[in-house]
C-alpha cells in the first residue's frame, strides 16, 4: 500500500511567556492511502497541533512531514479540515457554506454547485440547502462542515474532535454517518485517508483501522493499536468482545502514561 502521509521524527517547540513548551516529540508514523487513523490522547497532548502541522498550518521545529511524497512547509490544498466547532459562516446559507472552499481557492463556485448539493444529499440535508446555520442542530451543522471539507475532493481529511461537542447519541449517529460517507464518497479518487483526533476511546476504536495513542507533555506516540474489527461496522460492533478488549488496552496504555494530576483526566477518558 502506498503511503499518503509519512511523519519522520516530527517535533514542535513553541515559545510562551514562561519559556519554551515542547508540544510534540519524535513523532514517526506512516499512514497508508485510504486508511482511517484515530489519534487519541489526553487534553494537551498536542494531537490537534499534530493535525495542523500535517496540514502545513503550523510550523514544526524538527523532523519532516511528507504528504504524497512532498515535504510540507506551507499550507497544502490537499486537505479538508473539520473542527470541533462547525465554524460555519452565520451569514451564509448551508449551500453557500459548503461552497466556501471553492471561493477561497479561487475556483468558480458555480461549477461546484452540483457536487455541493450531492454531498448535502449524501448526509441527508438536501432539504436544508437554503437554511441558515443557526436554524440547524449541532449534529446537522457538523454534517455541513463535513460536506464543506469534502467539496474539493481532497485525498486527505483531517478531523479535529469533530463530534466532541455533540451529545452521546448524536455522536454515535455521526460516527456511523461518517463511516458510511467514507465508504461511499470516493469522489473518483478512491477512499479518503482520514486522521481523526478524539479523546473518546470508544469513538477512536469504532472508527479506525489503527488507533494512535498519544501521551502528554511532550506529545509522543505511546502505542499504535491495529483494530481488526470487520467492516462495515454497525451498532452491534460496539457490543463485541473484541471492541471491549481494544478499548481496555488503549485505556490501560493511557492510564499507564499518567501520574499525579493527570490521573483525574484519565477517568474522564473512559
Amino acid at each position: 500500500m502506498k503511503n499518503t502521509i509519512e511523519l519522520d521524527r516530527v517535533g514542535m517547540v513553541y515559545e510562551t511567556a514562561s519559556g519554551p513548551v515542547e508540544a510534540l516529540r519524535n513523532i514517526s508514523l506512516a499512514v497508508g492511502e485510504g486508511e482511517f487513523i484515530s489519534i487519541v490522547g489526553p487534553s494537551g497532548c498536542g494531537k490537534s497541533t499534530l493535525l495542523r502541522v500535517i496540514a502545513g498550518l503550523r510550523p514544526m521545529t524538527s523532523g519532516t512531514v511528507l504528504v504524497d511524497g512532498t515535504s510540507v512547509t506551507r499550507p497544502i490544498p490537499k486537505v479538508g479540515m473539520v473542527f470541533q466547532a462547525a465554524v460555519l459562516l452565520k451569514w451564509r446559507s448551508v449551500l453557500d457554506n459548503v461552497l466556501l472552499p471553492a471561493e477561497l481557492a479561487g475556483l468558480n463556485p458555480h461549477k461546484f454547485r452540483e457536487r455541493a448539493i450531492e454531498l448535502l444529499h449524501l448526509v441527508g440535508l438536501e432539504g436544508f440547502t437554503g437554511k441558515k446555520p443557526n436554524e440547524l442542530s449541532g449534529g446537522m451543522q457538523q454534517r455541513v462542515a463535513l460536506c464543506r471539507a469534502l467539496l474539493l475532493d481532497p485525498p486527505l481529511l483531517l478531523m479535529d474532535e469533530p463530534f466532541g461537542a455533540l451529545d452521546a447519541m448524536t455522536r454515535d449517529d455521526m460516527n456511523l454517518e461518517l463511516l458510511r460517507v467514507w465508504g461511499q464518497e470516493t469522489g473518483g479518487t478512491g477512499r479518503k485517508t482520514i486522521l481523526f483526533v478524539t479523546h473518546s476511546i470508544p469513538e477512536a476504536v469504532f472508527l479506525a483501522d489503527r488507533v494512535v495513542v498519544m501521551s502528554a507533555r511532550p506529545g509522543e506516540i505511546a502505542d499504535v493499536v491495529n483494530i481488526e474489527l470487520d467492516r462495515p461496522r454497525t451498532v452491534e460492533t460496539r457490543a463485541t468482545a473484541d471492541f471491549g478488549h481494544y478499548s481496555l488496552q488503549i485505556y490501560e496504555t493511557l492510564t499507564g502514561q499518567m501520574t499525579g494530576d493527570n490521573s483525574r483526566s484519565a477517568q474522564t477518558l473512559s
Partner: protein
Amino acid sequence: MTKAFDKALDWLPALGLFVALVVMWQLAVTQFGVREYLLPSPASVVGSMFSSEINWIGHILVTGWAILGAFLIAAVGGILLGTIIAWSPVMSRALMPFLVFVNVLPKVAVAPLFLLWLGYGILPNMLIGALIGFFPVVINTAVGLLQIDEDMLDLGRVFNAPKWKVFAKIRIPNAYPYILSALKITATAAVVGAIVGEFVASQAGLGYVIITSQSSMNTPLAFGALVWISVLGLLLYGAVAVLSRVIAPWAENQEG
C-alpha cells in the same frame, strides 16, 4: 394576526406610561397655574410645534442635514480607519495613540475652533457631530474584523486564500454586527454634535431656535424644537436599526 396583536400588547405598558405622564403634566400645569415661560403645557408645546410663527420646515431641514452629514462622515470615516487598523499592525500602532487622544478630548470644546476655521454654516456642525460619533465605529470595526475564530482563519489558510479574500468573505461580514451596533451610538452622537454646533453659532436650525426662544422667553417654542430634535434622532436611530436587521439578521438574537 394573534402574533401582531401580541406584539402590539408588548408596547402597551410604555404607551400607557407615556399617556399618563402627559396627562399628569397637562393637569399639573393647568391646576397649579404654572406660568408658561417656566413650563408650558403639552397642549401648548404641540401647538407651538405646528405654529406658523417660525419656519419650522426650514429649521428642521438645516438640522436634519447636519445630523445626516455628521452620521455619514463618522460612519464612512470610522469604517475606513477601523479597516486600516485591522489590516495593518503597523498602521494600528501608528494611529491608535492619536485616536485615543482624540477620544479623550472633549469634542464640544473644539466646536468654537471649527467655526473659526470653517465659518458659519452647516459644515462645522456636521464635523463636530462626526468627531463625536466616529470613535466607536473605528473601534468596533477593528474589533469585529480581528475577533474571529482561529479555526475560521485556518479554513482560509488551507486554501492559501489571499488576505483580501479572507477580508471580503470572512472578516468583513463577521464585523457587520459590531459596526452596526456602533452606528446606533453614532446616530445619537450625530444629533448631539449638530445641536452643539448650532448652539455655538448659527443662523438657522433647531439648536438656533432653542437659543433664540430662550432669550425671548418663548419656552413653548424651545420645547417644540426639542420634540422635533427627538423626532429626527429617532428617525435616524430607527433607520440604523432597520438596516442592521436587513444586513445582519443573524446578530439580532445575540443583541436582544
